[in-house]
């Protein structure tokens, strides 16, 4: 077993789709929270295969897309400092800040590097003891433990020239905010499989208990997604609301306690600013006192005031209130070569996915 091809079987998909059709008795709107799901759903044409009355909405689960301008502007301002190296994950390079992007700054000669793993930041810092290295760290719970490990090692190994610009986010508080806002018309959630590999089921219980909505933690292959949708429709038709796991090969009820412990060693929960969703309590992290010296957010530098493009609908798209097709900029001036908002930059951004597959 390779754990991939087995979950892409076309004949099984046809059978499951028939079962979905049979089970679905009323119109439903389901939200896939995670950008990786959005890409899979479009890549395999799942929206077009579902019965007319089963609609899928894309949610806020793209960390690049929800990073607010002020954080990007700060990373850009840091990159302009003397003897500074900025390292970050690839997708962040092209995201426009208020007036520039890391990619544009790199073209201007700033030292900005893409890393694949958080541990590469340590290697770069060791290789350049005469420079300050700042890791612009973004990501949800899938990535945060890996960033926490890098921070713990930086301290253990007494690397003095590596700092972290923390723009990480937590998914459950964002879902809480979405549900509370009541702007969202959704009957159930396809929950992110890899965020949940870390979290398990406990942090999502409020979705069922407080808001009476069903949710299924789902894998990313087409059969996983179809089964997740079927499980949601079944719950809706039976008037049940529980947090179920479809992705049992990766997600256990308790998640990965060691990974969560690493996050907790370094960070405490704090409010965070999300593009489109505003400031959400407990949806981010701040450094614990003992790690504060590694926080690049405290560098004393001047940052331009943040500005958003007035017509960009990224914020509404991230909340599932609007689709990219309703944005005046979509395809006209905003496209992957010239992204106006971050949802068009990230390969998992809803606008980028719509552009590619719609």
């Amino acid at each position, binding site marked *: 077993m390779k754990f991939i091809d087995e979950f892409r079987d076309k004949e099984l998909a046809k059978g499951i789709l028939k079962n979905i059709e049979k089970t679905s008795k009323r119109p439903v709107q389901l939200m896939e929270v995670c950008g990786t799901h959005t890409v899979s759903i479009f890549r395999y044409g799942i929206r077009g295969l579902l019965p007319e009355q089963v609609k899928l909405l894309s949610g806020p689960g793209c960390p*690049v897309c929800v990073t607010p301008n002020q954080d990007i502007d700060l990373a850009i301002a840091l990159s302009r400092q003397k003897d500074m190296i900025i390292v970050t*994950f690839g997708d962040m390079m092209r995201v426009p800040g208020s007036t520039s992007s890391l990619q544009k700054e790199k073209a201007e000669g700033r030292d900005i590097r893409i890393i694949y793993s958080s541990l590469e930041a340590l290697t770069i810092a060791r290789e350049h003891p005469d420079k300050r290295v700042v890791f612009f760290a973004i*990501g949800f719970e899938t*990535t945060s433990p890996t960033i926490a490990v890098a921070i713990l090692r930086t301290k253990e190994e007494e690397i003095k020239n590596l700092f972290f610009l923390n723009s990480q986010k937590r998914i459950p508080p964002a879902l809480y905010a979405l549900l509370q806002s009541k702007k969202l018309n959704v009957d159930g959630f396809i929950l992110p499989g890899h965020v949940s590999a*870390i979290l398990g089921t406990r942090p999502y219980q409020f979705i069922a208990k407080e808001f009476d909505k069903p949710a299924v933690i789902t894998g990313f292959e087409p059969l996983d997604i179809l*089964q997740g949708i079927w499980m949601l429709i079944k719950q809706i038709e039976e008037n049940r609301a529980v947090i179920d796991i479809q*992705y049992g090969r990766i997600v256990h009820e308790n998640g990965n306690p060691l990974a969560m412990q690493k996050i907790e060693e370094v960070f405490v929960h704090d409010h965070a600013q999300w593009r489109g969703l505003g400031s959400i309590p407990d949806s981010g992290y701040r450094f614990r006192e003992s790690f504060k010296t590694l926080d690049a957010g405290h560098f004393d530098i001047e940052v331009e005031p943040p500005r958003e493009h007035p017509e960009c609908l990224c914020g509404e798209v991230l909340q599932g209130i609007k689709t990219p097709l309703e944005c005046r900029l979509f395809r006209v001036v905003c496209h992957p070569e010239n992204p106006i908002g971050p949802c068009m930059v990230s390969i998992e951004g809803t606008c980028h996915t719509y552009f590619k597959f719609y």
Partner: protein
Amino acid sequence: MCLGIPGRVVEIEKNVAKVDVGGIVRDISLDLCPDVSVGEYVLIHTGFAIHKVDEAEAHETLKLLRELAEAT
């Protein structure tokens, strides 16, 4: 961004494993998933194993998928 791919552990040295992903072997940190053995599959995310792949559960899911496809 939350992409994860399964790979088979072929060698372990301290907290780093050599993991085979479709024929390409990469060094993967086991800091977050230390309790694995050679031959087992792990889910890889940004150079880290973040969870073991539960083979028995994978078979169970496939069984359910077959039942679901046939129950029409």
